[in-house]
């Protein structure tokens, strides 16, 4: 399970960085979104991967799922969600004001 999750985080990060380096705003927004997905999964895994464990310590249970990373992920999701919405509006505004969707406002057909 760890290997699979690591591969997913890696793939998302790679895709995110590649798209964030594109010169058009739409791939850029997608890239930032993929990066935030990657970091959310990464944070989630930092509490160690457990299945079927109680979220806080219960007497008799063999272990517990660390609740702190889940709280962190929740905060990070809220922030990245808001930021994605903001960047989309900003990208639309830039498209309208500069007449094209190049990040520098340079039209290259």
């Amino acid at each position: 399970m760890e290997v699979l999750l690591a591969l997913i985080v890696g793939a998302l990060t790679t895709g995110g960085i590649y798209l964030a380096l594109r010169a058009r705003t739409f791939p850029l927004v997608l890239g930032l979104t993929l990066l935030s997905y990657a970091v959310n999964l990464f944070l989630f895994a930092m509490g160690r991967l457990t299945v079927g464990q109680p979220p806080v310590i219960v007497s008799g249970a063999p272990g517990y799922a660390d609740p702190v990373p889940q709280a962190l992920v929740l905060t990070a999701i809220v922030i990245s969600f808001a930021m994605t919405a903001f960047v989309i509006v900003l990208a639309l505004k830039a498209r309208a004001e500069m007449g094209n969707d190049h990040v520098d406002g340079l039209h290259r057909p």
Partner: protein
Amino acid sequence: MNHWVIAPVLWPWLAGILLLLGRGSLAWQRGVSIAAVAGQLGLALVLAAEVSGGSILVYTLGNWSAPFGIVLVADRLAAWMLVVTALLAPFALLYALRGDDAAGAHFHILFQLQLFGLNGAFLTGDLFNLFVFFEILLMASYGLLLHGSGRKRTRAGLHFVTINLIGSTLFLFAAGTLYGVLGTLNLADLALKVAAAPPENAPLVRVAGLLLFSVFALKAALLPFYLWLPDAYANASGSVAALFAIMTKVGAYSILRIDTLLFGPNAGLAAELLEPWLLPMAMATLLIGVVGALASLRLRQQVAYLVVASVGSLLIAFGLGSVSGIAAGLYYLPHTTFAAAALFLLADSITRRRSDQADRLDPGPTMASAGVLGGLFFIAAVAVAGLPPLSGFLGKFLTLRAALAHPWWPWLMAIILSGGLISLIALARTGSLLFYRAVPPENPVTPEAPSALARELAPSLGLLLLVAGLTVAAGPLAQGTQAAASQLLQPQYYIQAVLKPGGTP
């Protein structure tokens, strides 16, 4: 528990909410905003007086003891940063009241939320909480940067938002790695766990630490990461650019905090982690900043590059790592913040008076009130370039004196002094282009009403008076920064103060 600690965080937040309630009326917004920044100055001064004796005040939110709950920690450094922010804010706000704030609906709300984020970032004692406050101040800064709109501003805003979002992602990766390896996010607890990290975890801790450093270097605009700054600052409105003068200092503050607390000399396998990077990067930043200032074609771009150079000087002082070096940097920090803010405000006033040339550095017709503006520009330039008699000179002198103890002292001397010389040349060229080489206008300039002029220039004059105040009070202030620096270099007191109630120091 001392409730003054949380007051500087709650105050601007409550003011922001109050402003949201009355967002229809500009007069109401202005009144509340002025009252809020005045009150904030009072709170910052009270907190500074509380910690001036050397005590470290800890506020446990919800009374959850550290390291389980989030703590706010007020030490001398945090109080110093709060006072600097609270002194800068009224002048930026006063300048905005001339009309910048009417260009969009939510200027005052964003302004207060920016202060909320700044104060929180200075006070928090928790790494993830620091991330959250960074996000708050960044979100407010996105809104402020785009305030008033315009094609160039939108473009600069897009770049600024993107680079900061990537920075936030890196911050989360770093915080996540530290939590995964060490199992805590409380800064004091992290300091203990970093020092006690077993050898097999050391590489991960070091990677996370350097990742954290690069995030803060991005916010502080150190050399490879400074590229976002000139465009963003040069295209923001005058009052916003003046407020942003403190934003790079948040990065510098965070670097200083993690460098002394987490990766100090006693940090086990991660000791002196930032040492090989901080000083060379700061030196290169100073050089690239002044070269950029020399090459600038626009006034506001030049001021923005001078901000980059000042971050370089500041982090050279911090990078020395000694009490005298950090103390010199802490004395230089308010100076460079106020001087850069004054120069941004003056640049905005000058730009308004040069209709065709705007802020391009070409000779143009004599602007209205050139004498007064030229005089203020001269004083601000003297302050920014670090010439005597103002506090910039004292700050640089203290840095140079501290640098003598460092093995690289010839290089440090050469870079700091030539940096000062190049910025002097750049500003002298700008001043002569703007004020001496001006051609007589076709239509005689109509003199401006003295009252309107006084209202426009009062904020920049006020900031320059603060610089003069820093110069006059240099003795006691330098002693204060000395005390703050020696407190920083004894992190055991910070750790003890945070973890003592029920912790494991």
